[in-house]
């Protein structure tokens, strides 16, 4: 998977490194600001109220 992505990044080496960094940052941001806030209330470890 990672090898496949690397082979398909266009451009010379330095450009590929930059592209890879952008990809990683993008995915981390997507997780942090979209996926995790959505998933968190569904997970059973941060409820603090009684019913």
């Amino acid at each position, binding site marked *: *998977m*990672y*090898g496949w992505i690397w*082979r*398909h990044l266009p451009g010379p080496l330095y450009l590929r490194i930059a592209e890879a960094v952008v990809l990683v940052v993008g995915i*981390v941001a997507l*997780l*942090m600001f979209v996926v*995790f806030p959505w*998933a*968190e*209330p569904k997970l*059973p*470890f*941060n*409820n*603090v*109220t*009684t*019913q």
Partner: protein
Amino acid sequence: MPPRPPRPRPVDPPTEVIPRIEDDYDDEYYDDDEYYDDEPNKAAPPPDSMARKAVRGFGEALITMGLVVLLFVVYEVYVTDLLSAEKQEDATAALDSEWSSNVVTPPPADPNRQSKLNLIEGKAFAKMYIPVFGNDWKFSVVEGTTDKHLEIGPGHYKDTAEPGEAGNFAIAGHRVGKGAPFNDLDLLESCNAVVVQTQTQWFVYRVLPMSSEVAGWASNPKSKQPSCAGVAPLSTTFGDAYAKTVGQEIVVPTQGEVIAPIPHQVGATVPADKQARLLTLTTCHPRFSDKQRLIVHAIETKSYPVANGFVPPEMTEG
């Protein structure tokens, strides 16, 4: 001393001519631009078998999932703190400007007649301090206990008593992430002060004796300390209805009766003037789990009117 005679230099051996070795190393191999291209057949190693690819893909997927889980922990413990700190700051700023802008009449002299607070969901209405947690432990308490409210700070259970009222002023707060206001709630001991400030009044609540201390409280040297003035097992001062109300308890999430006006007595009809003025804090337990709830009960022992520059002496305890 006579100068030393120069040493004789060693005679150079005759230069040996090494014949050039012809090997089959192909220099042009690496110069070939197409080497880096994607044509599968030109890659140096032979193409991987399907099984090999599958195993590698599976391994990479596992590594990726592990990284995502680690990232989630970072999110939960650090990133939510940052997001919540901002919201808490905004709520505090809004509260400060509200307090400084509108002038209210001082609270009525009759302690049974409280000036009602204007509680709006999601808006801060009081500040909370726990001196034993340090000077910097202060949070603005908002109205409401949904996830959205608790991201801002500790949240007041709707329909429970207001600060200083007879009954049970109940607050929920996160223990992990989101500012983690109640991270150390398990460390509170009996008689520790929890100070709540509204626009007009300060209220000092003190943690009730723990269940292990209830029996021997009168003979316990701790009960003679000045910080324990006004603190006694509730069953001795307010009657048997309060027998189950102690400083700290751990309950299951469905036990909503801990925030009832008289904890554990949902149906009880006790006139307001016979009810203790309680503060109840709830958070998750154990840490990182929602299996149970950690509950801390405290009783109001003192109140002061808010005055310019006045800070209750309890604030420096700790």
